[in-house]
Each structure stands twice: as C-alpha cells, then as structure tokens.
C-alpha cells in the first residue's frame, strides 16, 4: 500500500477529518527493523498475538490466523513473546 500525501487542495474545509479511523492510510511498517514470520503448521489459532498486538497487525480470516498486516506492524516482537507454540519468529528485514 502506498501512502497518500495530502496537500492543502484536498484537505476538507475547516481541517475536518471526515473518515473514522483513517490512520490505516498511514504506513507505520517502515519503522520496522525486524519482521515477524508465521509458521502456519505450528499455529493453533489461540489468538494471543491478536490480543497483545498494539498495532492491530494480526490478520484473521474466518477464525484463522493468516498472517500479518505489514503496512502497520512496527516490529515490536510482542507476538513472538506471547506465542505458546513458537509459531512466530522474528528475522532481520531486508529493505
């Protein structure tokens, strides 16, 4: 996802923010040094990572943990330390 830069021409009158939760258009994934990787074979879908992720970056589809939202994941590693089956590992991200 590419970040949309806004100039004065496309900011609403009065500086209002019209869309709720539009921070999802802001990319915090560039902060990351280490990137979490999921081993789907080991994952038991306990969702502990979802509960303790500060950036809502755990993607869950139909009650299955399917991966990460790398646009917003800041690479804090909390998901790794709470994972009971060690299904998530951190590795150095190549930019």
């Amino acid at each position, binding site marked *: 996802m590419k970040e949309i830069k*806004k100039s004065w021409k496309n*900011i609403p009158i009065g*500086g209002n*923010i019209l869309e*709720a*939760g*539009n*921070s*999802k*258009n*802001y*990319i*915090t994934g560039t*902060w*990351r040094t280490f990137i979490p990787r999921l081993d789907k074979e080991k994952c038991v879908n*306990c*969702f*502990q990572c*979802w*509960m*303790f*992720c*500060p*950036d*809502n*970056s755990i993607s*869950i589809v139909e*009650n299955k943990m399917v991966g990460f*939202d790398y*646009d*917003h994941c*800041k*690479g*804090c*590693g*909390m998901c*790794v*330390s*709470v994972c009971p089956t060690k299904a998530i590992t951190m590795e150095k991200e190549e930019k």
Partner: protein
Amino acid sequence: MAILLKDLVNKNVPLNGGHRMCPGCPTPVIVKQILMSTDHPKVAANATGCLEVATTIYPYTAWNIPWIHNAFENAAATIAGIESAFRALIKRGEIAEDRKQTKFIAFGGDGGTYDIGLQSLSGALERGHNFLYVCYDNEGYMNTGIQRSSATPIGANTTTTPVGKVSYGKKEPRKDLISIVAAHHIPYIASAAPHNWMDTMNKAKKAIEVNGPAFMDVISPCVPGWKIRTDEWKGISEAAVKTCFWPLIEIENGEWRLTGESKKIADGKMEKLPVEEFLKSQGRFKHLFKLENKDVIKLIQDDVDKSWNYYKRMAGYND
C-alpha cells in the same frame, strides 16, 4: 456471559493500526481491552497525553468511535458534559432508540489523572455522572520526556529526579489514587494489568455497565520511560502483579476485593515474589542494583509491603 477471544477477533477494533504510539506500547492494547468488553455504542474523551497525541496526528485519526480531546486537566469534566448533553437530548426525544444505551469513557495518563486532572475527576465523580474513567498508568510524564509524576515509584530514574552521586532517583512513594477515588464512594473502582486480559475485560464490562461513575487504573509499562525492550511489557506487567507492586483490586459498592493473581497470593495459593523481580528488567531501576543503593531496594520492598497489607486488610484478610 463470558468473553471469548474467538468472538472478539471477528469484531471491529475501536482503535485502528497506523497510530503512532511507540512500538511495543501496551496502551493501545488497554484501549482495545476496555472498549471491546461490551457491545454498547461508545463515546471516548481523552486527556492530553501519549494516547491523545499519537493517535490523532493530523490529518489522521485512529479512532473508530466518536472521540473528543479538550485540555490536559479536564477529560473527566469533558466526558461529564457530553453525558449531561446526551441525557438532555434523550429527554427532548432527539436520540434514536438504538443509541440510547451509549456509554461514555474517558482515557487519561497518570499525569492527566493523578496530578493535573485530579480536580476535574473528583468533581465528575462527586456529581455522579454515568461514565468510566480509565487511567493508563505509565508512572511518569513519558510523552514530554520522562519527568516524574506523583505516580512514579520510589527510586525511579527520571529526567527531573536524575540519578547521580547524591540522588538515587525519586524519594517519595507513589500516590494511592485508588483510595482517593474510593473516598468518593462511587459504585465501581478497579485496578487492572493488561497481561491478564480476561480480568481487565471483566472489570471493564462491570465498570461500563454499572449505573454511575466508575474508575479504572491500569498499569501500562512504557518502553522509553521504563527503559525496557519492546517485547517485554507483558512479563513486566505480570511481575508487577506477582510482586504485589500492583495489586489487582476491585471495589464494588464499597466492598473491597482482590482478583486474579493478587487473590491467589492473598489466599496463599501463589508465592509473593520479592520486588527485585519487578525492578530487575527495567533500566530506570538499574542503579538500585549497585552496592551503594542496596538499602533503597529494602525501602521499596517496605513500601510495597505496607500498601499490600493495607489493601489486604481492606479486602477482609487478616495479616
């Protein structure tokens, strides 16, 4: 009804990703736990602080619910005003039926709650507005550069209580806000820790559903302020509870109770750890483990024991 993780993951999270809190900050997790504990429509107010600044950097907002920020000292007064206006609109018949169950929640840091916002919090509690005030307690003014607050514990190294040849850090114990709020005799008060999400969410559910003011104090380990690693806060929150530095308390209609690990420790089913277990992984207490500061750890342990015995007594345990 019990709160289940497999139901929660299918719901919309009230605070979107893309906010600019530090990596590994537990405060968004606390907000998630509090706001997702019930399905009521909700309105949030924010005191100035990390959460307010980092979630609403223009032209973005991370909030999926109606949200307001006014000033540092008046989050409680602001939410009280919203709640009063809402009641007036219900009287006039201008609120739709499905919105009448709207709940009002204020979030403040410990600076905006213990120090600067204490008078407006006290006023709103006394007037008996129907709202929940949540203090995410990171024990200092972390957003402005780690200054001491009245929530900072003894011995902590901050930029206004720097450690050196003559000082071992902050010299005064933390303020007992739970007891101050309890003196208002409001229907629900609790302290919580985010590692025990079930306990926090059950408390938040009770606090939101109770008729009248409610208050929650939630510990929020701070990565730059406590000088910890980004993946460490869950363990530190757990250590804070297991050392009785941060007892899990619940006060329902004047009746004090201990919950979670704290109840197990009081009942003798779990071992109470020495306070070093909580201090050792934090950079702000690193200096205490030097030989010359050995007495300070004893000072902290005495302070923790004193307040733990007080809470235990209040909850009906004999020493």
